[in-house]
């Protein structure tokens, strides 16, 4: 949520007679956002990539020195999605409360409007659930990416060790058969 949207939310809460609860929720969200940024930074720090990752709303804009194209970048993305899901959950709760307060309108048309409003409340909660699913999938993808990268690095290292051992063995064989001795003949004796 942008600062403007957060302010609008807080204003709406205050207008609905829940000023204290609204302020607490806004403070909560701000704290969550700060924690999210700190988390991104910690993730970037784990990868040794320097400054914290991009904050909410900058998923497609890799900053200088961020881990945007790395598993940590994907974890940061999942974190931001979860943060959005939390915001939407809060919205769904506030919408539900507002629905209860708007339930005084009589008549069939008002009943239809109430049904629509309730459907929006459910859709908002479902949207938050969808964001959490995507965030979990992004986390799993980042873990798999990290494991795959580590596996490939281990394979490459083993391959290098095997090749070095093979070359060392071949050199030892040459030395044992005397082939190396001719090569190592003193200078000036070649051709005798």
């Amino acid at each position, binding site marked *: *949520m942008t600062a403007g*949207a957060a302010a*609008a*939310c807080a*204003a*709406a809460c*205050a*207008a*609905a*007679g829940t000023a204290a609860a609204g302020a607490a929720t806004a403070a909560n969200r701000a704290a969550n956002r700060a924690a999210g940024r700190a988390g991104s930074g910690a993730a970037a720090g784990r990868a040794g990539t320097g400054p914290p990752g991009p904050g909410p*709303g*900058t*998923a*497609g804009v890799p900053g200088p020195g961020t881990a*945007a*194209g*790395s*598993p940590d*970048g*994907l974890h*940061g*993305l999942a974190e931001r*999605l979860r943060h*959005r*899901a939390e*915001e*939407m959950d809060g*919205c769904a709760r*506030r919408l539900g*409360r*507002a*629905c209860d*307060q*708007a339930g005084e*309108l*009589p*008549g*069939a*048309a*008002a009943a*239809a*409007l109430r049904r*629509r409003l309730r459907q*929006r409340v459910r*859709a*908002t909660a*479902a*949207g938050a659930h*969808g*964001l959490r*699913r*995507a965030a979990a*999938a*992004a986390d*799993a*993808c*980042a873990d*798999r*990416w990290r494991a795959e*990268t580590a596996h490939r690095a281990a394979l490459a290292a083993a391959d290098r060790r095997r090749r070095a051992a093979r070359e060392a063995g071949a050199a030892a064989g040459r030395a044992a058969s005397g082939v190396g001795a001719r090569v190592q003949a003193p200078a000036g004796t070649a051709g005798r």
Partner: protein
Amino acid sequence: MSGHPARPAARPDAAPLVWHAAAATVREAAREVREAARSPALAAAGAVCPAEAERVGRLLRQALDDGRDGLAVLADGLLLDAVRLGRAARTGPSAAGGVR
């Protein structure tokens, strides 16, 4: 006098404000999802583990465009509801369902 400001009473015209704020939140979430779907991290993951990256992309698209429950449609719907609620609050109960 307790010295504390009085708690504001619930107003019937507060619901449109809540709906407006919810629409803004959902719109921001939709924007975040769009950016996530084209993020370089996801594109790079697709080169290493394509199945997992494809699943993330599918879930993001689903969250965005899942019919009436998709974030894109939901944001517009919430905004429309805010207008309906505002109209109902201004003109009385008879106008509550007037807008389809």
